[in-house]
């Protein structure tokens, strides 16, 4: 019926299509090797609006495009960057004075309004901004949220919030504004170092409180770099130097943020020399990395903190000696060496070394491996369970170390121990919220701002946002609150350290490991540093 021809045509058409596909793919994304720019690997950012950016990749790109009010020095203390002064008499009303003469990369001047409107947008509940909780301390935050009258599943829609702007933000003049908090907070200056507190130009808004369509893909900031073209989703984000930038000028002329779906693919490109910096080398490639990269493979402290929580709603974990025994039964050093190949370090405290006020070995003997003592404590405890269960989320690569931890507990205490994987973190949370007997709960924490309070409050405070295990100690809460209200940062740290000491005797969690950035870079670049939030320092990096 068709004869010979259509078949031949089909073959021909396929060949042509194939050829065309080969030819059209001409746009190679390699930047000129001789130029003074670098290629940094990231994964696809979820968002690039500052108040909606909560993950590392987005924060990395924003670090190039924006200039923060404050940054942090080597001791993790805040230092002024875009702000000329930040002061407060009572730690409640803060006056921020901006350095004059700064502009956005589109030429618009950076004024107090640039900050106020950006923060109002971020705090407004219906905008659903992921980092909106950073604005919680500012006066008027509650009025920007709306409460669904019949809960999430009910048919009624939530009413519009009472207000659209924070009453705590007041403009004094073009370069000065005040921030009033609902309660005094000593560390507020540090909080404002987070990316959620970047300003936005007028060009960002199509109407008051509405981000213009397409702004996120070609975002305009007040930083040393500006976007070249638009965000090429799943492919790359290119930025180039802003001419005549008023602040600290980076040593490189441009950055190509190359987007990878998979860190192993990113590592392959790094070893092949197609990528200049990988800020986090996956665990699968760690064994080969020192050999592949030599001294271009480096480590630096990160803020992540891994621990397991004791569900206090389960009777058998209410005896402190049971909790101490389990903590002593674990050989943390062996775990970090064997399983994490030195990419994490044993935790001996309840806050990360990335914050000012961290002290070594706060946890003392309770976090030191001592099988004999652990066994003695266990034997003496009347309510010690016969079996231990550790619940983790199976999608996070936790199985190996949870199983190892179980084996250590089995050996030290001669009891049964099983690791139970829930498919996702949300499943784990649901079970914990229902108070099902999940046993020990695997958890982790990455800081939002470098203050001890950012660990103590959310993780161990009564009703803390990540206190899923329900630890509650009035004395501890009071000390944390006193620290937050203290007159000076030094005084605050003293209070917070006293609070941490309580944790060391109460052992509400087993501290396990502090994270480290394990990063690598190509022969083309030098002076590569990765900060505690796993962002490459863009002001130091140099092309050789």
């Amino acid at each position, binding site marked *: *019926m*068709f*004869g010979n021809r*259509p*078949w031949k045509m*089909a073959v021909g058409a*396929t*060949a042509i*299509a*194939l050829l065309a*596909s*080969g030819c059209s*793919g*001409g746009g*190679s*994304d390699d930047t000129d090797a001789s130029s003074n720019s670098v290629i940094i690997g990231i994964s696809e950012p*979820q*968002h690039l609006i500052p108040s909606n950016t*909560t*993950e590392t990749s987005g924060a990395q790109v924003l670090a190039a495009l924006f200039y923060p009010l404050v940054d942090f020095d080597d001791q993790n203390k805040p230092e002024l960057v875009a702000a000329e002064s930040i002061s407060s008499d009572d730690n409640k009303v803060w006056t921020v004075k901006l350095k004059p003469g700064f502009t956005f990369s589109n030429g618009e001047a950076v004024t107090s309004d640039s900050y106020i409107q950006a923060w109002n947008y971020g705090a407004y*509940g219906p905008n*659903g901004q*992921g980092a*909106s*909780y950073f604005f*919680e301390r500012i006066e008027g935050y509650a009025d920007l*949220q*709306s409460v669904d009258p019949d809960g*999430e599943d009910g048919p009624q*829609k*939530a009413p519009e919030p009472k207000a659209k702007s924070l009453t705590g933000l007041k403009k004094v003049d073009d370069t000065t504004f005040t921030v009033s908090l609902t309660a005094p907070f000593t560390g507020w200056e540090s909080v404002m170092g987070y990316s959620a507190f970047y300003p936005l130009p007028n060009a960002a808004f199509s109407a008051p409180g509405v981000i213009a369509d397409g702004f996120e893909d070609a975002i305009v900031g007040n930083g040393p770099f500006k976007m070249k073209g638009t965000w*090429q*989703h*799943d*492919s*790359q984000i290119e930025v180039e130097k802003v001419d005549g930038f008023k602040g600290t000028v980076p040593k490189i002329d441009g950055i190509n943020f*190359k987007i*990878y*779906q*998979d860190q*192993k*693919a*990113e590592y*392959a*490109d790094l*070893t*092949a020399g*197609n990528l200049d910096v990988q800020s986090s080398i996956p665990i699968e490639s760690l064994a080969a990395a020192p050999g592949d990269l030599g001294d271009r493979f480096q480590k630096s402290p990160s803020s992540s903190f891994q621990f397991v929580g004791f569900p206090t709603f389960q009777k058998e974990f209410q005896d402190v000696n049971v909790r101490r025994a389990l903590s002593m039964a674990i050989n943390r050093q062996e775990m970090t060496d064997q399983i994490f190949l030195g990419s994490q370090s044993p935790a001996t405290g309840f806050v990360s070394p990335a914050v000012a006020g961290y002290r070594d070995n706060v946890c003392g003997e309770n976090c030191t491996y001592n099988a004999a003592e652990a066994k003695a404590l266990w034997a003496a405890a009347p309510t010690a369970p016969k079996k231990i269960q550790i619940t983790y989320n199976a*999608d*996070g690569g936790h199985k190996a170390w949870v199983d190892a931890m179980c084996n250590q507990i089995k050996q030290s205490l001669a009891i049964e121990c099983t690791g139970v994987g829930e498919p*996702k*973190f*949300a499943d784990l*949370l*649901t079970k914990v919220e229902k108070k099902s007997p999940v046993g020990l709960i695997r*958890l*982790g924490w990455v800081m939002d701002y470098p203050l001890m309070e950012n660990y103590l409050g*959310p993780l161990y405070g009564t009703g803390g*946002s*990540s206190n899923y295990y329900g630890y509650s100690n009035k004395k501890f809460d009071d000390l944390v609150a006193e620290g937050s209200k203290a007159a000076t940062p030094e005084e605050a740290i003293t209070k917070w350290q006293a609070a941490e000491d309580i944790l060391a005797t109460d052992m509400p969690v087993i501290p396990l490991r502090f994270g480290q950035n394990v990063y690598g870079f190509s022969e083309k670049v030098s002076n590569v540093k990765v900060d505690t939030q796993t962002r490459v320092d863009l002001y130091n990096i140099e092309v050789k």
Partner: protein
Amino acid sequence: MFRYIVRRLLQMVLTFFGATFFVYALMFANQDDPIQALAGERPITESVRQALTERYHLDDPFLLQYWYYMKGMLTGDFGTSLTGRKISDMMEVAWPVTIKLGLIAIVIAAAVAVTSGVIAGIRRGSIFDNVTLVITLIILSLPIVVLAPLAQLIFGIKLGWFPPTAGATPTFWALLLPALVLGSLVIATELRVTRSSVAENLRSDYVRTARAKGLSRKRVIGVHVLRNSLIPVVTLIGVDIGGLMSGAIVTERIFNVPGVGFNLFRGIRTEDGPLVVGFVSILVIVFLVVNLLVDLLYAALDPRIRYE
């Protein structure tokens, strides 16, 4: 012929709705807490959760969600993913690169498989036949999760013949290695089917007749044997497109190709219903059209087959 095509097209409409309904139902059943899945382990404030739940209709019952989705899709609007990106924009990036990858893989696989299969079929028991037998056995026994990183390590990093990753706008050269890996998924079976089919047809009556007529060996094999031997192979290639798409989920991740397979993986991981169903809907259409084309190709290959 015309009536046949119309009948098939009508069947396709039914299959399409059935398939998308199933996929949507499965995604809905799997959907636990997509907002938490997106945020990772970070706590989410109540008002953010509330705003996102309303924006993406996450609190509506299943049939209503499906209705919203279908209504949008039939008017050409695939909706937005849970990260706020338009799914049609994501498809514009993802489909071209996957189609390129798939086409290169299919053409390479078919060309190698049919050529070697015919040679092996003609020279049964020869060294060539035995060598291909061993090679296909090795390829068949290597799963793609092993083969892809191995190929990347050897040819991409150690030897440096190919770029180790391809990216979103790859050159032909950068796509060749992932395409070879992807094609090797199907090459072994296609080769063996061709071989046995050619071997069988060589013994058939019409070949003896053709030889007896004094036709040249080239014509006997090139026209008479090959054409009849291709029918099972063509069927296989049609089915293989499915295999290639599922293989693409692994290959695209390893070679950093932000295509269809990658988007499906991302959508499933973050419980992003609209994203998965959008891509699967197009995949279903691709399957249906390819299978229709394969069926029509039978008629071109074998004059005895007629569609009424």
